[in-house]
């Protein structure tokens, strides 16, 4: 019973979002890769089954449902093993990661009609008291994660992890002009800010594959300078291999960035 309790809450949530085939895959991932880990990253788990399956639904909304389910699962595991819960990682998504809302599509404004002359004056109408309606504040639009950016961010983050934090900071500072010149000024600052964090995810609607490639190139050059070309090549190959293994059916081929 306790064994089931480690997976059941997760399954219950996922049933609402996934088709049976995809659900089976996700549960298999959960039970093989995640269930026994001391630290579980919810974000990685969701990324994992989203990237490996052609799932049409959005991942948005999953996090808020999965979070309590995961806590229940961890408590069940704790009761079963007797070990304390070591912790879990909250996704950047919930922590207000650097996600730029999508730009609004251009709206066609209808032409203002010409004022029509009123033949007769309107009859006086008695004012009617209208009860004020409570308007709910509009929720900020949060777009679903774009697979391209999941792959790109993960790739860049892993590359940056190949160098120790002090030197990474120096490297980013030294290459800041090149980095910022890879994309539009609107995207440059958020990009540079993201690179200085430890976050795994970055998205900006003004960054396309060409910009991603240019950013990768600058990061690699910096890696060569600070880590040496031999190590830089080794890191690049390893990270590219990791990404290819993790996202085999992804819409963004990592080779496009190299």
């Amino acid at each position, binding site marked *: 019973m306790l064994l089931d309790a480690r997976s059941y809450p997760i399954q219950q949530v996922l049933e609402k979002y996934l088709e049976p085939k995809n659900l089976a895959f996700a549960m298999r991932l959960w039970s093989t890769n995640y269930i026994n880990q001391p630290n579980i990253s919810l974000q990685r788990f969701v990324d994992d089954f989203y990237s490996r399956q052609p799932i049409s639904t959005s991942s948005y909304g999953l996090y808020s449902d999965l979070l309590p389910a995961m806590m229940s699962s961890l408590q069940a595991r704790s009761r079963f093993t007797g070990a304390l819960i070591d912790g879990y990682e909250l996704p950047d998504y919930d922590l207000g990661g650097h996600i730029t809302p999508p730009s609004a599509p251009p709206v066609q404004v209808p032409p203002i009609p010409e004022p029509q002359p009123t033949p007769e004056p309107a009859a006086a109408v008695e004012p009617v008291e209208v009860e004020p309606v409570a308007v709910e504040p509009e929720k900020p639009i949060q777009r679903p994660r774009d697979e391209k950016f999941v792959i790109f961010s993960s790739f860049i983050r892993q590359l940056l992890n190949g160098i120790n934090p002090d030197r990474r900071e120096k490297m980013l500072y030294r290459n800041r002009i090149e980095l910022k010149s890879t994309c539009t000024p609107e995207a440059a600052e958020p990009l540079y800010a993201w690179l200085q964090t430890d976050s795994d995810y970055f998205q900006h609607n003004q960054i396309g594959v060409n910009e991603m490639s240019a950013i990768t190139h600058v990061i690699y*050059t910096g890696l060569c300078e600070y880590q040496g070309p031999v190590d830089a090549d080794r890191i690049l190959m390893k990270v590219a291999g990791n990404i290819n293994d993790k996202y085999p059916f992804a819409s963004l081929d990592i080779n496009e960035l190299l």
Partner: protein
Amino acid sequence: MKYLTTGAVFLLLPGISAAAVDPETQNLISIMWLTFCAMIVFFMQSAFALIESGMSRAKNAVNVMMKNYFDVCIAMLMFGISGYGIMFGESIQGWLGAEKFFLSGVEGGREYAFILFNGMFAATAATISSGAMAERTKFHSYAISAIFVSGLIYPLYAHWAWNPSGWLQQLGFVDFAGSTVVHSVGAWVALAGIIVVGPRLGRFDPDTFEPREIRGHSLMMVTLGGFILWFGFFAFNAGSTDGLTDQVGKIALNTAYAGAAGAIGVTLTSYLRRIPLLLTSTINGSLAGLVSIAAGCATMDPPFAALTGLIAGAVFSFGRDLILKMRLDDVVDAIAVHGISGAWGTVAAAMFFTADPFNPQRIMIQVFGIVIALLWTLAASFTLFSIINIIFGLRSTGMHEQRGLDISEHNEIGYPEFQKTTFRSN
């Protein structure tokens, strides 16, 4: 029948004195000797290709081979077009040859062999820079530089030093087979090239400025290249007699001794300096010995040839460190091997000159010739590379350097079955 006679004479040479051979046969023997030596010197190009490619990373192996193959083609043609005329044409005040361009006015078969032999020297001078500048230089920019090195920069200095009317020759400058004229000139071109093109990505730590080792991909290729170069040096030095003479044996022996002593010299120096003795250093030490003996191989006795080579090994060891301290990235240590050791060999040719050893005036002339070579070549090639850099761009982009020049410049890789790569060939 004439050729049969020549062949027979060639085989039976030990028993035949020069006086016993009629001038026509002697001429044929000289043509055969020069042509044969030119072919062996040509074979040295394969050794340069092996050494330079082996010392580069696998992702640049094809590019290095391609440069080596191509600069021979360019150098041979350019030497015929302008090089030979500048080098051996009628001299204008000892400064510049002004005839025999496009091989006009060439007399007879022997001169053709002479052109071939000297064309190979031009190719050698041109190819030295390819190794030093490997792994980050654009192919077409390098090819353009090879045109000017083999067609102008090398032949002009060679005119001063080797043309009978050349002003350095008139001063008494001695460089029998080109320690300075060929090797140092090639190395100074390389020096200018690496200054303009800059070091490879990450060769020096940006904070500590310490050099990082970037190992080549095949020491077997380097070793085989070392053996072939040594073999080629016999023809390089002995062919400079311009015909088959009784000096050939001594020259070949001096060459062998200097090469062997060079390897021992670098070994002893490494031992005394408590630095690791590398295979590449040993081979380069032996090449430094071979380069150093070129200047004096005909004018010094074998013990001094060995001493010259021994010191050249040590000179190479310190020279290599000097280049690194200057934060210059020479992939194959060409400047230490060909430039610095070549300069030492040119001084040694005066110091150990058999007929008149340790003559200060002769030594000063040699030093003067070395300085002139450095100034002319460095200035001319620095200007050349700077212009190429402005017009065409000398350095390949960081992205190309990252992918390797094989795939980015030639769309083929050296080891398609073994090279682990995720890169596409698009």
